[in-house]
């Protein structure tokens, strides 16, 4: 990381100026949104690797029928840790990291609305993650990432692992909630002059929806796990059927949070795709208003569909049908997005740089997850497919194909801005193809595993039909996918030291973050430009070209000229 050192120009003379802390202390005490963003990205990527190792261990266990490599207790701990890690410690906070870094830059602000609250969010998140992972030295939780009841009650899960899980949900929950409030306040109040709602970048629309969904959903899960904590240690019986409590109540509360959470995980990925495609297709986004509106509509409908996780529960059919219709409805705005993305590529001049390739991979893979979602929305079909490997395949096409490929699009697109250096295109493409092929090989066959009768979360299976062959294909794919991730890690390590210098705007992009030097100075912008369209950087480049062609014209207002790097990195 090339550190930016600034030479302050003294304006006011004071008798005492606090020295800027250096080294580790600077990272620990920072309230700069960019540094907090980097802290999020690095920490969440470490959790991503841990979650990936857990996945590989499970795939190793399933490589042959009736394997006894891993004990059933450890296997249950592995899938609990894997799911919890990927959702609460990777995808949500990773997008929080990118949003921290880029929301102020994209809207032309100098920091988040509440910088100290922002730092608190990160440290709460990290504490939650560390406490959760500390449980591996004692007893990790083993009741699934959904922590289903009564299995997670003190009777059936007496170990402290479940309490570590509750702790994690609370701390990452408060962290996400504070972060979300911060994003909303920043986006509502701190936009550059001229950035009206119809000029708001689509990534910002998606983060705004992500933040609102978090604000709606987090209090519900916080309430549910508080009730669980009281049940476990303080003698209440909210979820204890033997004492008049209801296990179904927990499922309702959990999925009221859990389904919006799915859109919390995927909407920012939609946002980044909508930013990257126009840049590399060299044409404006197709149907800006439709994409922005569909983001909000998905967020709203996402709050109505939680019951489709509960089609097999003893819930009246008429109630379930309501959830089925809502799930059908949500396919419409999601389809609109995919069609508009293809419309953006149509008649463009597509430059196959790594961010664009990852973005197109995301569209291709997410489409598969979206289509399998239609099957699961239909109540009777869900009765056959629910809780089998078909569901596992579906969620992984959404979260690996959608969220992870979206995150890798972010990494390849924004790395030059964050570090000032370019990533290797060659390594990036190798990483993409390994990950793309790995995802298809791992998860396509899992549809058939489910159709062939294999339930999810089982540590062993009998080799009935072709179950062993299918599992072996899936395991092989998982290792290809992991290799692809490692190539990107290698690429990042290599480019941090020896990457080509990027300059402020290597992609000829559209949004304001490319207006400042790479990496951006602490104050982001010396001058905040006036925004005149959805693509302010296009206007600025056009203006520069115009002036370069006619140097004799009178100088225009200074705000239209990109600021020079004050001190080179």
């Amino acid at each position: 990381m090339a550190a930016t050192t600034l030479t302050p120009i003294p304006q006011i003379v004071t008798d005492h100026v606090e020295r800027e802390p250096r080294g580790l202390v600077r990272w620990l005490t920072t309230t700069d949104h960019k540094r907090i963003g980097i802290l999020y990205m690095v920490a969440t990527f470490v959790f991503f690797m841990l979650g990936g190792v857990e996945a590989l261990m499970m795939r190793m266990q399933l490589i042959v029928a009736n394997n006894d490599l891993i004990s059933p207790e450890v296997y249950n701990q592995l899938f609990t840790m894997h799911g919890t890690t990927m959702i609460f410690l990777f995808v949500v906070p990773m997008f929080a990291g990118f949003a921290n870094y880029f929301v102020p830059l994209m809207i032309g602000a100098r920091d988040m609305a509440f910088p100290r609250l922002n730092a608190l969010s990160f440290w709460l998140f990290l504490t939650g993650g560390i406490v959760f992972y500390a449980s591996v030295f004692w007893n990790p939780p083993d009741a699934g990432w959904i922590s289903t009841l009564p299995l997670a009650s003190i009777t059936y899960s007496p170990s402290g692992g479940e309490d570590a899980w509750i702790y994690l949900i609370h701390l990452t929950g408060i962290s996400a909630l504070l972060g979300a409030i911060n994003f909303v306040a920043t986006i509502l109040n701190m936009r550059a002059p001229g950035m009206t709602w119809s000029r708001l970048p689509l990534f910002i629309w998606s983060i705004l929806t992500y933040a609102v969904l978090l604000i709606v959903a987090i209090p519900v899960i916080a309430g549910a796990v508080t009730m669980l904590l009281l049940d476990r240690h303080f003698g209440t019986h909210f979820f204890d059927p033997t004492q008049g409590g209801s296990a179904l109540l927990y499922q309702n509360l959990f999925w009221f949070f859990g389904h919006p959470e799915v859109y919390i995980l995927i909407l920012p990925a939609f946002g980044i795709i909508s930013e990257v495609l126009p840049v590399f297709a060299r044409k404006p986004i197709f149907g800006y208003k439709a994409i922005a509106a569909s983001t909000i509509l998905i967020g709203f409908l996402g709050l109505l569909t939680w019951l489709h996780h509960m089609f097999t529960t003893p819930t009246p059919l008429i109630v379930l049908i309501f959830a089925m219709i809502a799930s059908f409805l949500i396919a419409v705005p999601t389809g609109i997005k995919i069609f508009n993305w293809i419309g953006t590529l149509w008649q463009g001049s597509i430059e196959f740089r790594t961010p664009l390739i990852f973005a197109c991979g995301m569209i291709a893979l997410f489409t598969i997850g979206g289509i399998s979602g239609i099957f699961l929305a239909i109540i009777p079909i869900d009765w056959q497919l629910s809780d089998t490997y078909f569901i596992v395949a579906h969620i992984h096409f959404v979260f690996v194909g959608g969220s992870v490929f979206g995150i890798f699009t972010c990494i390849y697109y924004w790395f030059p801005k964050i570090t000032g250096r370019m990533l290797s295109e060659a390594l990036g493409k190798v990483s993409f193809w390994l990950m793309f092929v790995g995802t298809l090989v791992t998860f396509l066959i899992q549809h058939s595993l489910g159709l062939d009768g294999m339930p999810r979360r089982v540590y062993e299976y009998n080799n009935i039909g072709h179950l062993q062959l299918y599992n072996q294909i899936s395991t092989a794919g998982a290792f290809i996918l992991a290799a692809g991730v490692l190539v990107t890690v290698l690429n990042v390590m290599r480019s941090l030291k020896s990457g080509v210098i990027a300059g402020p705007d290597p992609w000829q992009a559209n949004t304001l973050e490319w207006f400042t030097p790479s990496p951006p100075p602490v104050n982001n912008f010396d001058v905040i430009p006036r925004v005149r369209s959805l693509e302010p950087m296009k206007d600025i480049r056009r203006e520069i070209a115009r002036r370069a062609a006619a140097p004799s014209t009178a100088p225009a207002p200074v705000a239209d000229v990109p600021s020079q790097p004050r001190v080179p990195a």
Partner: protein
Amino acid sequence: MLASLAALALAPAASADFFTPQSGGSPNADHILDLYDVTLIIAAVIFVGVEGTLLYALVRFRARKGRVAVQTHGNTRLELGWTLGAAAVLLALAILTFAELHSIVTPAVSGPNGLTASETGVPISTDAIKPPKGPYITIQVNGQQFVWRFTYLGFGKLADQLDDPYTYRHLYVPTDTAVVLKVVSQDVVHEWWIPDLGQKVMAVPGYVNWASFEISKPATYSGQCSFICGFGHATMTALVTALPRTQWLAWLHTLEKNLQANKNGGAAGRKTLQKRTGSAAVENP
């Protein structure tokens, strides 16, 4: 591995469960399969359409010398068109689902080779499911860590059903007879699933869930608990065997006799123990 996979995809008989859920045991599973097949065809068309258009766009509009991107911002008519198109497909799927839903949730009617009304035990009230027309039997499926217990409701002599015959792990039913399942759990959440016999039902402690099936020919089907219930989740398997009417009645008779013998043996043992220890009474376990 790849060769065998290719062979698998090509051979229609072997690929029955490669693209579609299992079925054939019970009419409701077959109805679900019908619905699935139509959805699969629609999904395949959408898949090929979307992925094909994406691929075409990527190849056709790749950057080349002299290509200039067309600066369009959208096309309202086109966008409205695909919105309505997507909505129409989903509306069609919804109508189809409603058309099939009734036949899937309504228990089948027992056939001529099934049990007669006098052989189905004391009728059990099925409050949440419409009882089948004609004779049917009711089985209580009780999930417990980590085994399924099946109680043949109404076949005992006591009015409170405490002596109804029961089996563990292996359920026996008569062929051609509607079987209503009363699914409960006595500890954590479990999920009853025999893929060939249709829908899963979650067994939630404190709640009663209902399902039904009917098997026409003698056969045995396997399945297992499909909702995480603890470390033994993967071993919580179940078998369902359908026997012809007369064989099933004979089997039930043997079962009742064996259970009675066990009960008598237990009572005798308790009596001996009582005598030896001098304690007042040993509670019936």
